[in-house]
């Protein structure tokens, strides 16, 4: 069962790493060009909040640029899609493919089945984030830019906590629904709305992406500390979503 769960997520995990990695390589390659053309960028950006994001990142040099490109932009967008992609089919996909009966008729408890799936999916989602984040160190050396390694990984931990919560929500919905596409539309629909709210000054406080906003990430760079209350809250949310998933999976007829 563990072997199958790992096999199920392995190629998705590889795809996520390649996508995130490709973005990081391009971003680092263009850092000096970005640095030299900040003013021009500011002028072509249509929204004031995005101009502020660029300013804030520029103030912190290469570390701020990495926060902007790798965490705020790439991890938040690709990561959201990846979190949904990893969680949506966990149970709903088995129902669609009609393999759920084969799975549930094995002499294994439902809690174990779900835990193996959850852990495999979470690792498949988060390992690429840490691997690609680690790759930023040698990549930065190719353009002769130093990286603050501690804050870099703290940002990865913070982003991972956020993605894990989003993944857990998708996973919980997958245990309650029978159509993985609907699960994906639901979570992605809400995520797109929430991300849009982030750039609306009057409504940005209502966006859950505020938890991984550039200001939060730059604070980590500046202080070298995690925003513990937020991260503990995200971990608790993941735990709560997983507990709901287990309860639903154990009580659901298939």
């Amino acid at each position, binding site marked *: *069962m563990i*072997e*199958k769960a790992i096999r199920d997520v392995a190629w998705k995990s590889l795809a996520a790493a390649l996508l995130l990695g490709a973005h990081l390589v391009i971003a680092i390659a263009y850092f000096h060009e970005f640095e030299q053309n900040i003013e021009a960028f500011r002028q072509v950006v249509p929204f004031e909040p995005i101009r502020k994001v660029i300013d804030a990142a520029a103030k912190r040099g290469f570390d701020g640029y990495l926060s902007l490109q790798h965490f705020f932009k790439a991890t938040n967008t690709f990561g959201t899609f990846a979190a949904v992609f990893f969680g949506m089919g966990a149970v709903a996909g088995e129902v669609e*493919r*009609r*393999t*759920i*009966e*084969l799975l*549930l*008729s*094995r*002499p*294994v*408890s439902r809690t174990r089945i779900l835990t193996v799936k959850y852990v495999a999916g979470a690792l498949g989602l988060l390992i690429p984030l840490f691997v690609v984040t680690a790759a930023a160190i040698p990549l930065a050396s190719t353009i002769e830019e130093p990286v603050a390694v501690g804050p870099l990984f703290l940002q990865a931990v913070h982003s991972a906590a956020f993605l894990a919560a989003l993944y857990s929500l998708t996973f919980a919905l997958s245990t309650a629904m029978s159509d993985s596409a609907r699960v994906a539309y639901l979570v992605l629909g809400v995520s797109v709305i929430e991300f849009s709210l982030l750039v609306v000054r009057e409504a940005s406080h209502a966006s859950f992406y505020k938890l991984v906003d550039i200001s939060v990430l730059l604070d980590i760079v500046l202080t070298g500390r995690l925003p513990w209350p937020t991260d503990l809250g995200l971990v608790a949310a993941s735990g709560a979503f997983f507990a709901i998933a287990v309860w639903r999976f154990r*009580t659901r*007829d*298939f």
Partner: protein
Amino acid sequence: MIAVDRLGKRYGALAALDGVSFEAARGTIFGLVGPNGAGKTTLLKCLVGIVAPGEGRCAVAGVDVATDPVGARRHVGYLPSEGGLYEAMTGRACLRFALSAYPAVDRELLADLERDFPVPLDRRIRTYSHGMRRKLGLLQALAPDVPVAILDEPEDGLDPSARRRFLDVLRRLRDRGRTILLSSHQLESVAAVCDRVAFLAAGKLVDCDSMDRIRERAARRIRVRLSPGVDPAVLRIDGVESVTPRDGAYVVVAAGEPLDVARRLAALPIEGLEYRSLRLDEVYSDLYGIERAA
């Protein structure tokens, strides 16, 4: 080996199962028949803990499915009706996955089954035909070294020769002490291998008896077509247990010696009389009120 006691399951207003009780002894083949929607699959799913019954209880090898579903499943090989398999896997990988959760696999039996139901195990399942998928499903359901096999529509998609081999395999497994619960629309097969048969309709058990007894009861049925205008009450002669109108004729069940009753019925004003041992599909038709072919 399998005990079902007043099992009930509702989906809203619909009673999928309503007070179903029966037992299947060790080393027997128990057939479950009934029209679509009768509750057969729900019953089998209750026995492996995929569906939780609303009322009653069921046990496999003495283990209550509700209180210890994993323990119960350790004694059961199960073939689901729709037979969903992991399309991206090869047959061998899927088989390995399906069998890996069992404490023991009968390797000798598995080798025999692979000979009886040849499947290209190194090909991906997405390239399989319906029949190949069914054969792979049978391998994973029958190969675990367990005392019970629960098979939902196992012959669906099997060609006639595979079907014949399948019935031989069931007989061999029964002889080795395995209990087999079989849901099927293939009544000829049910009649050929089952020791006991239960008939389900609208979630209720309408009849449950040994195959021998069903044959014996079937032999007591006489179909009579009365002359026009004759009161069917004339059929209630001495030695007649019941008279039921069916398809423009009457089914008379003899309480005593059927040949003697048939002789006396023949003396009445009738257009025709049919007395022969019924096949299981004819018993099924009579039970469910389905018009039989002439």
